[in-house]
């Protein structure tokens, strides 16, 4: 049944709980959504549980945390009952993840090319020469001008934008069906940000992938995604089409949109969020 259905990912009542000295902290409290071959944005402020949601799907939740869900299924595979070995086979091959800062998420002692080849050869039986050719082609696809030079560089030798492109290349080389991008452009300059988003956008639509785009920037997400989930205190407070963001109902979404300074809007003082305890209830 899995192939025909359009749903790639099904999340129902996902909870992630961390035991701490002062008791249990629920970082994610009952999140439900489904993802097809579309771009879905998850927006929230720090501590809203957006990253933990992404990590739980990817299987990167720290070992001391507890995950529970009525359903957490990728293409019909139950991610909660699957063995670690099968999970590893999925990760990188069918589900990929882009992290925020290439400075920390790339291996500093391995050349960029070798890291990409490593990903490919972990998941596919390909020869060294072919792997190299495919890595070079992938670097070209993420608009790196001189792929054979960049192939041999180490992460500290490239700029942030270049590093993030290399990371996208590494994530896409095994041809995943779903990609989770956790703040993929927050560490980049605004102009570079748009280049990287453009590349991501083109590759995702060309390959028909499902994308989960996690970000704190509501406006950026709504300009990039088809659908947006707004999270607050571990819960989804609102789900809406990106094009209908202007008609957001929840006061939190509206407050978040409103409190950012805009060029041309002369508002002194800026409206601030009046957090209501019932939002977190």
């Amino acid at each position, binding site marked *: 049944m899995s192939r025909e259905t359009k749903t790639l990912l099904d999340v129902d009542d996902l909870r992630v709980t961390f035991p701490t000295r002062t008791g249990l902290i629920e970082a994610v409290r009952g999140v439900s959504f489904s993802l097809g071959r579309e771009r879905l944005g998850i927006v929230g*402020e*720090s501590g809203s549980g957006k990253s933990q949601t992404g990590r739980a799907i990817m299987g990167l939740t720290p070992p001391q945390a507890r995950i529970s869900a009525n359903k957490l299924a990728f293409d019909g595979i139950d991610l909660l009952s699957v063995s670690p070995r099968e999970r590893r086979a999925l990760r990188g091959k069918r589900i990929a993840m882009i992290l925020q800062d290439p400075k920390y998420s790339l291996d500093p002692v391995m050349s960029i090319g070798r890291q990409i080849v490593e990903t490919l050869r972990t998941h596919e039986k390909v020869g060294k020469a072919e792997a190299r050719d495919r890595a070079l082609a992938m670097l070209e696809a993420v608009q790196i001008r001189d792929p054979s030079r960049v192939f041999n560089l180490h992460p500290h030798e490239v700029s*942030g934008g270049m590093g993030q492109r290399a990371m996208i290349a590494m994530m896409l080389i095994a041809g995943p069906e779903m990609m989770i991008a956790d703040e993929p452009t927050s560490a980049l*300059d*605004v*102009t*570079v*940000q*748009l280049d990287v*988003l*453009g590349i991501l*956008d083109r590759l995702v639509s060309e390959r028909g992938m499902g994308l989960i785009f996690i970000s*704190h*920037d*509501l*406006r*950026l997400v*709504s*300009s*990039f995604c088809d659908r947006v989930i707004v999270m607050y205190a571990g819960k989804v407070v609102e789900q809406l089409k990106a094009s209908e963001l202007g008609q957001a109902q929840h006061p939190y979404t509206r*407050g*978040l949109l409103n*409190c*950012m*300074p*805009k*060029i*041309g809007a002369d*508002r*002194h*003082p*800026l*409206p*601030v*969020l009046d957090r209501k305890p019932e939002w977190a209830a």
Partner: protein
Amino acid sequence: MTSAIAVDRLEVIFDRFRALKGVSLDVQPGESFGLVGESGSGKSTLLRAIAGLAPVASGSIVVNGKTLGPRRDKAFYREVQMVFQDPYGSLHPRQTVDRLLQEPLAIHGFADGEKRIQRALDEVGLGNGFRFRYSHQLSGGQRQRVAIARALILEPSILLLDEPTSALDASVQAEVLNLLEEVRRRRKLTFLMVSHDLAIITHMCERLMVMQSGEAVENLAAADLVERRVTKDYTRNLLRASDGFVRTA
């Protein structure tokens, strides 16, 4: 009227790298002036050079009519204070808020410390309850308020703000920006503010300078930017980028 800050053909060189290539700047007293640019454009270096934290190779910096030498004296820091980007890195992790605020008072020999600390905390909206906490017991926004209180406690006339809100959530950013505007109005402060975000700069500042790779690209009034009366392509690119992602299909 003498300028609050006048920078003339300033060069900053780190080893052999020219971080600032002859940048000039003039900020009037009571004005709020913005510096915009991408990483590596030299905007923070310019701020740090004024504060005495970057090696100046040539050029001059005049603050309130006084030309600055290679070393800053105590009187300078009573006039000029700085707020840094990362509230997690700029507060001492093993000192209470009280201790953090006492330090500048002790250095400058203020006698009425008690009163000043209370007033500074009230001014930034924290109140006495935060006085004996450590910085790890505070949220990012609260920490930045402490950093602002520490800068204000000596009653300077100029604040140097290096991306004061870029580490904060959008809703907390609005609160901190409002606080900064309020203290500026109340104390008639001069701001020199660095940000990569054009929207923040046009919100906070009357005039701004766009920088790229150690050079000034153009000087603008915030109103010009709002009307998109810019002359340089680089500024136009920045403006377009701040509009968000546009799909080219």
